[in-house]
């Protein structure tokens, strides 16, 4: 462990804004993509079910 305290960790030697924005945007982007694909899959399943019923 090289961080003296939690606040040191958050501050990142003064670069906290840049580091955490980077990791935050990355995490947000990837999680959003997962969420979007799941939503798309649910819609696609619904669509497939509907067309099955149509037949």
């Amino acid at each position, binding site marked *: 462990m*090289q961080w003296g305290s939690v606040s040191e960790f958050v501050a990142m030697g003064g*670069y906290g804004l840049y580091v955490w924005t980077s990791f935050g945007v990355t995490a947000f982007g*990837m999680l959003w993509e997962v969420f979007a*694909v*799941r939503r798309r*899959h649910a819609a696609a399943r619904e669509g*497939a079910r509907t067309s099955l019923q149509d037949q």
Partner: protein
Amino acid sequence: MMGLTRINWFKYSSPQAFYPLAGRLMPWCAAAAILLIGVGLYLGFFVAPTDFQQGQSYRIIFVHVPAAWMSMFLDVVMAIWAGLGLGLNARPSFMMAQAIAPTGALFTFLALVTGAMWGKPTWGAWWVWDARLTSELILLFLYGGVMLLRTSIDDTRRADRASAVFALVGVVNVPIIYFSVRWWNTLHQGASVSMTAAPKMAATMLTAMLVMTLGFWMYSLAVTLARMRCVILERERQASWGTHPSHHDALEVP
């Protein structure tokens, strides 16, 4: 591994068979991704030391470099599937290319954003027109064009083939742009700051970066497989509106 004989391969190349296969593979890839990214983050924040020159800001490379590598890797893979689709006239190949594009675009965007975040504290500029960043930007337009072509063209077959041609043209163009901009930079001495100058990498830094890259790779695989399943269902639905005999029996819709 030797069980994957040629016969099995053709069996899985039909969308009906691929759907459950993708469904079984995906959770493993997702689990691997979570594990690798977790380990990578730990290594990056708690094992890799502070950099001599860049202080703590260098840690951004643990997301920036993997994102950039994935953006380029996915572009090449997408182009390969596009080429296979055009060459073999194989619908599943086009579908794979379709499934990859959004993830490639996301990583390109993330590479650009994290690149700017790294550049500002380290070199004082949000953006420089160096070869790597400029080609990354063009790559974003490439992914955008591939996806926009697909949504603008109603006929699925034409959309497949048009975006495949564009993907192939684009994958050739990006290296050309990279080298043109490098040439251009050597002439116009102004932009001599290279934002590609990563710090001298201690072994732990390199390890963390590689682990994160592998994690992003597993993530891409998981998301692409999941999206592929969506594409399969969507196209099945479109097909059912035509006069195709119903083959839904083979498709488990859970």
